[in-house]
């Protein structure tokens, strides 16, 4: 049950859009030159979708990921995340939105090395302001769910790559986010662990989570239900996969 997203989600304008982007542009101004990384993106991702965003390096998919995850802000256009307009929010408001609505899974896991796996998963709950008991119960359940109940008090260096990514997924799920955002989540894993993690994602998607996966691995993308291809800062293809049926 804990792997399922919160019940009774807000209606978000009625259409159930988790991501709603309109004419989104991102320009990097380096002083001498201006680089337009995103040139007008229109993208809608609905609740319970399992989407992959693909494209070659330099296509703008990382920029898009940063903006989707509120790690960066767009230069122009509008972006509603789970019904909330993101443009114009200050750094702390953005931090709150990331905390409540987005769960990140990174290619290089990004676990904090000097604290235990348990403390890593506990961290977003601390930021949320959850009480000690709620935190403990939630973290313990999450570890059970990702199958690492016996590894909770190990430090990241004492875990394998697959285990670290499982901890990272547990951390991403800690605050029951509306959107799970994964950036090349199997990129640093061997084939077996990669399959494992992908299985975990499919399981999450089955249970009704909204997942966006950024990858350049087409085989992996085909396992999701929809592929959005981006090139030169524009969406050039948006199609369902064979899994969609």
């Amino acid at each position, binding site marked *: 049950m804990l792997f399922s997203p919160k019940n009774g989600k807000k209606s978000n304008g009625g259409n159930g859009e988790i991501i709603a982007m309109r004419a989104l542009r991102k320009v990097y101004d380096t002083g001498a030159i201006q680089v337009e990384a995103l040139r007008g993106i229109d993208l809608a991702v609905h609740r319970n979708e399992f989407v992959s965003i693909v494209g070659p390096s330099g296509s703008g998919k990382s920029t898009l990921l*940063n903006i989707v995850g509120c*790690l*960066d802000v767009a230069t122009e256009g509008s972006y509603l995340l789970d019904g909330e307009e993101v443009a114009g929010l200050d*750094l*702390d408001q953005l931090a709150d939105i*990331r*905390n409540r609505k987005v769960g*990140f899974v990174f290619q290089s896991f990004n676990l904090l090395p000097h*604290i235990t796996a348990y403390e890593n998963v506990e961290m977003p709950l601390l*930021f949320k302001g959850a009480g000690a008991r709620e935190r403990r119960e939630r973290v313990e359940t999450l570890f059970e769910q990702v199958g690492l109940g016996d590894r909770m008090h190990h430090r990241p260096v004492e875990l394998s790559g697959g285990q670290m990514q499982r901890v990272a997924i547990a951390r991403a799920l800690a605050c029951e986010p509306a959107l799970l955002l994964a950036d090349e989540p199997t990129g640093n894993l061997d084939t077996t662990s990669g399959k494992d993690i992908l299985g975990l994602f499919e399981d999450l998607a089955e249970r009704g989570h909204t997942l966006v996966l950024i990858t350049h691995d087409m085989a992996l993308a085909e396992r999701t239900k929809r592929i959005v291809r981006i090139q030169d800062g524009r969406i050039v293809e948006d199609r369902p996969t064979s899994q969609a049926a």
Partner: protein
Amino acid sequence: MLRAGLIFKLFRRGAQIQRKRMAMTVAAIAWGTLSIVLLLSFGEGMKRSFSKGSKGLGEGIVVVWANATSKAFEGFPQGRNLRFHPDDVALVRATIPEIVSASGEMRRWGNNLSHGRKSLTKPVIGAEPEYGELRNMIPVEGGRFLNVRDETEKRRVAFVGDELAEELFGEKDPVGETLLINQVPFTVVGVLKKKIQMGMYGGPDSNVAVIPLSTFRSLFGRVYLSDMVVKAADPAENETIKKRLFEVLGAKYRFDPTDERALQMWDTHESQQVTINISLGIQIFLGVIGGLTLLIGGVGVANIMYAVVKHRTKEIGVQMALGARRSYVLGPLVLESLALTAFGGAIGVGVGYGLVRLLGFLQTKANSEALEFMGAPTFSPAIAATTVLLLGTIGFLAGYFPSRRAVAIQPAEALRYE
């Protein structure tokens, strides 16, 4: 409350890296703190010694000499010499209510003082009983200063300075012994308790014999006072007293009360203020030197905090991605900087305090006049407060600026950092 707890929790989890560098920084702060504690303690010791020394002459007293007029007045020409009569003391006491204590003083140089086979040439002072308290002439236990009966009965008794007593009587207790002043026998009734005397007129008190004013007058046939010593209940009234002395004595001796040359005065309260200001100046100077040394330690802390922030840029990015507000990133880093300074500061203050105690102890053993004058280094609550305040400020600033840089960048950028 929850936020403070969270910040502390994050601090505890973060402050474990780069131990070697941190140890060096703590040492730098400890060194800076030690310098400031020692310098301020020496300054404080010097200030106390100065203050004590400036009180050696008497606290808040005004010494008045009769001079010569510089203005013609009521038919009298200018340049007329003035002299005080012993009765003038009673006159100023009666007419100037601000004066609570006063004594006339007569001085004579080149007297032969002898005891047994020892013979010395020293000054002798004739003074009234109030003189002892006015001039801080405190007797060693077992003796006393001159009293009223000595004065009224013209007794041949003497109060002697400590150095004079040692020269004449050696190890022997002089109280009760006979001292010959110009072959006239006097009984020693008290010996001056050793004091630091910075200001003086006519030689240090340690080297004179004081006898009753009445005895002095009949012995040497003197009519006029050398000077008068007066004191107000509150030194703030010294200005009034000085003005009134010109008026009262001007009326008696017929000189213009605005004639500043007619009377010469030494307001020890005024010179004490100067001394206090000088020692305060020295203390500020020492404090600034110490503060600058501590600042170098502070730069060290800022330096390591910049390194820590750089080292943890990616971690900070991860925390921000997980929803850390700016204060959750800033707080632990500032706390870390404060902890480093507090730790170094505690070591510095501890060692400094120990050294101050040790130096103070060694100084009492050294028996050097120069060291005695400089005063024993003294650790005071004010020094502790100054040090803590400086350390706190440095610690906070050294943590705040580097961490502010950390939270100013977008999380996306911090996450890219390798």
